[in-house]
């Protein structure tokens, strides 16, 4: 143990130097580092530790894509098709019911059941139609089709959420799929978390419908909504926070927002905020057809089942462009709508399952408090160790300094995220890191008491403490790794720093301190050891 192989010495020194090189950029202000990264050779590390959202401020959202709503909606569509097509084909049916995951109906003439089933299968390839007794039909998605809807909804939602968040221009958002139907979104440094949430959870489906002029709003409100129409509230709210009015809108979608190619905030002729839009060729043609065929009618602009406005069609609109006005837009809300329309509609409803948002003020306070606690903890431990162990204490303290550098370097190099509990993990490591040294020093003391010579005492001390250090640290490491696998947000940061801290304190105690002690021993050759 007294003799340390040259390659080991080189390795130890190399690790320590690397530790310092990687750790240094973290001690400097960001602009200094930026300046460096331009002037220094590119192989030098200039990364800083990733701060968790709890330290730099930002929003963590766990979202669920409600793919069932997509299926329910498709079932609605199939039911509509059944109504029209069966009428055309002269297939009589009763008891048409639309549930959350299927449609049920009974064909009057059981002999027609097979033909009816064939007709339904042709409407949507993904459905399975089961024929029951006496012409009963039940329509549902196959398991594979449900899985596909789920998968596609999540993938599309991620894409659209990414576009919407990119519109903020913020740095490096994290958008990840989690499990079957969940999406994790982390937006650092968010100034207004409410806006982010609204932007992520608004479906933003824009559709154009004709207003049903065969009836009045009052009649519809009394419950007499004509078949194929529905009563929708206005998007604009009155002072009491209720919809300013209602519209009877035909269900049929004349043109849908997925044919938009662009949307921009603008002002109308009265100089109030509005949103201009442009269709692709398909949308433009449909829009032209609709407006040509319905001059004099009212065209409702509907966003997520709320009517923005319903202007009169004075003349055919052939250019494939238009403007959405009315609806009580402010400059911000017009801008927001333009962003949403450009990014596209979400394929399904999105629910917020979990939210953790930290404002920038609290983040900075936490960093400051963590820094103060770490420095004070460090000073206390250093003073105590030197008081108790004298020169050997100094060795341990130097090893502790390298230990900290290596922890910070490892966090930086791995681009792990430092959270507030992570800082707590580092402070805890500072306390526990001296443990391995203490084990060795106590062992050396004992051997000295047993009458061994300094060299032999140190040799035996390192040898005997070794297994104890491994055993005791591995058990703590087991706990730390399980903590990581439990994997909930900031707590994960704690387990990362704790694990790295355990490994690096084993390394520094066993290798680095030993290098110091052995070098000192061989140089001074003391007669008596004062551990």
């Amino acid at each position, binding site marked *: 143990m007294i003799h340390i192989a040259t390659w080991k010495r080189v390795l130890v020194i190399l690790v320590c130097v690397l530790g310092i090189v990687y750790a240094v950029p973290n001690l400097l202000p960001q602009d200094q580092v930026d300046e460096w990264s331009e002037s220094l050779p590119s192989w030098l590390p200039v990364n800083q530790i990733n701060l968790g959202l709890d330290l730099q401020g930002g929003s963590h959202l766990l979202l669920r894509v409600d793919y069932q709503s997509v299926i329910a909606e498709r079932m609605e569509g199939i039911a509509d098709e059944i109504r029209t097509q069966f009428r055309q084909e002269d297939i009589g049916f009763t008891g048409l019911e639309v549930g959350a995951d299927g449609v049920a109906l009974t064909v009057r003439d059981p002999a027609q059941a097979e033909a009816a089933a064939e007709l339904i299968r042709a409407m949507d390839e993904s459905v399975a139609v089961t024929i029951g007794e006496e012409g009963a039909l039940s329509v549902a998605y196959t398991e594979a089709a449900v899985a596909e809807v789920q998968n596609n909804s999540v993938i599309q939602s991620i894409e659209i959420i990414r576009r919407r968040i990119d519109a903020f221009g913020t740095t490096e958002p994290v958008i990840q799929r989690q499990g079957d139907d969940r999406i994790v979104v982390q937006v650092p440094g968010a100034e207004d978390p409410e806006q982010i949430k609204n932007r992520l959870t608004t479906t933003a489906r824009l559709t154009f419908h004709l207003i049903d002029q065969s009836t009045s709003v009052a009649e519809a409100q009394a419950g007499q909504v004509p078949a194929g129409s529905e009563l929708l509230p206005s998007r604009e709210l009155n002072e009491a926070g209720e919809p300013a009015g209602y519209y009877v809108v035909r269900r049929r979608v004349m043109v849908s927002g997925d044919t938009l190619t662009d949307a921009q905030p603008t002002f109308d002729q009265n100089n109030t905020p509005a949103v201009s839009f442009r269709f692709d060729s398909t949308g433009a043609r449909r829009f032209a057809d609709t407006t040509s065929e319905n001059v004099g009618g009212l065209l409702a602009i509907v966003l997520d089942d709320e009517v923005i406005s319903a202007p009169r069609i004075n003349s055919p609109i052939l250019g494939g462009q238009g403007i959405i006005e009315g609806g009580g837009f402010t400059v911000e809300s017009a801008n927001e709508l333009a962003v949403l329309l450009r990014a596209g509609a979400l394929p399904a409803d999105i629910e917020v399952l979990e939210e953790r948002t930290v404002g920038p003020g*609290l983040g900075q*306070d936490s960093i400051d408090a963590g820094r103060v606690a770490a420095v004070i903890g460090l000073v206390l431990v250093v003073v105590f160790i030197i008081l108790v162990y004298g020169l050997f204490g100094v060795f341990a303290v130097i090893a502790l300094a390298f230990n900290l550098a290596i922890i910070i370097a490892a966090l930086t190099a791995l681009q792990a995220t430092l959270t507030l509990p992570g800082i707590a993990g580092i402070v805890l490591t500072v306390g526990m890191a001296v443990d391995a040294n203490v084990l060795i020093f106590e062992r050396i003391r004992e051997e000295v008491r047993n009458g061994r010579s300094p060299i032999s005492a140190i040799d035996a001390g390192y040898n005997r403490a070794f297994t104890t250090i491994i055993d005791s640290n591995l058990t703590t490491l087991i706990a730390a790794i399980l903590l990581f696998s439990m994997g909930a947000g900031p707590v994960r940061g704690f387990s990362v720093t704790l694990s790295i801290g355990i490994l690096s304190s084993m390394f520094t105690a066993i290798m680095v301190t030993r290098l110091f002690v052995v070098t000192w021993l061989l140089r001074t050759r003391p007669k008596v050891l004062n551990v």
Partner: protein
Amino acid sequence: MALFRFLNRIPHVPFLRFRRQAYTFSALLVAASIVATAVLGLNFGIDFRGGILIEVRDQSGAADIEEMRGQLGALGLGEVSLQEFGEPSDVLIRIQSQEGGEDANQQAIERVRETLGDGYDYRRTEAVGPTVGAELIEAGTLAVLLAIGAILIYIWARFEWQFGVCAVIALLHDVISTIGLFAIIQHEFNLATVAALLTIAGYSINDTVVVFDRVRENLRKYKRESMPQILERSLNETLSRTLMTSLTTLLALVALYFFGGAIIRDFAFALIWGIVIGTYSSIFVAVPALMQLNLRRPADKKEEAPAGP
């Protein structure tokens, strides 16, 4: 060289003589913890129970908690609790999980923001829906159980089975009494507390293993001594290391408790308790328990014998 010497000689504390008192104390502690947890229940935070937590800072200085309580109480959001958090201007608002699906929490947050108005900075907003809350309970329980199991297996593989059992007894003692402490003082029990529990488990084992290691070594070294003598010798030989490590760790944790900020305080508190109880249990629970379990001297196994004379 050193200014003062810490336990310069190997002490001769007759630890095992106090083992009846220690057993009584520990049994009472564990029993009280279980009763307290069953009767008082744990004050689960929103991580597990679901609900909303909002930390606000009054921009005009000291916050008027009574007025805020009145405003928010009128919203009909169920149980709403407010408390000063760290500074007079900072208030922590806790709102129970809202009925009516996952989006209900979000609507409640919006209403709170509308009601309180612009005079506050929203420093932190956390909302956990019912689904996630249930999942976190599961993950947390699983992590603690797995950790205990994995540690048991590790010790089993490295030592005689009696060591494994005693180490886990000491560990359960520490974990249960920490949970009991949280039930008695009704501090919030959240994800960070679970992290603290796992760290305490790790530390407790770490401490126990160091003593056990020495017991194992001394069993081979002092063949003529009786089991109690060997256990006592091992405890005394490792005593100065046990205390040193606990003290340095406590120093760091005390710094964290007082200067680490309000969010981390409960976490540091749990760990401080854990270190103290973990140190106690290694000495007074784990090692005496070894004696009760009829630990035998192992036959001389060469691969386990330490180097040296």
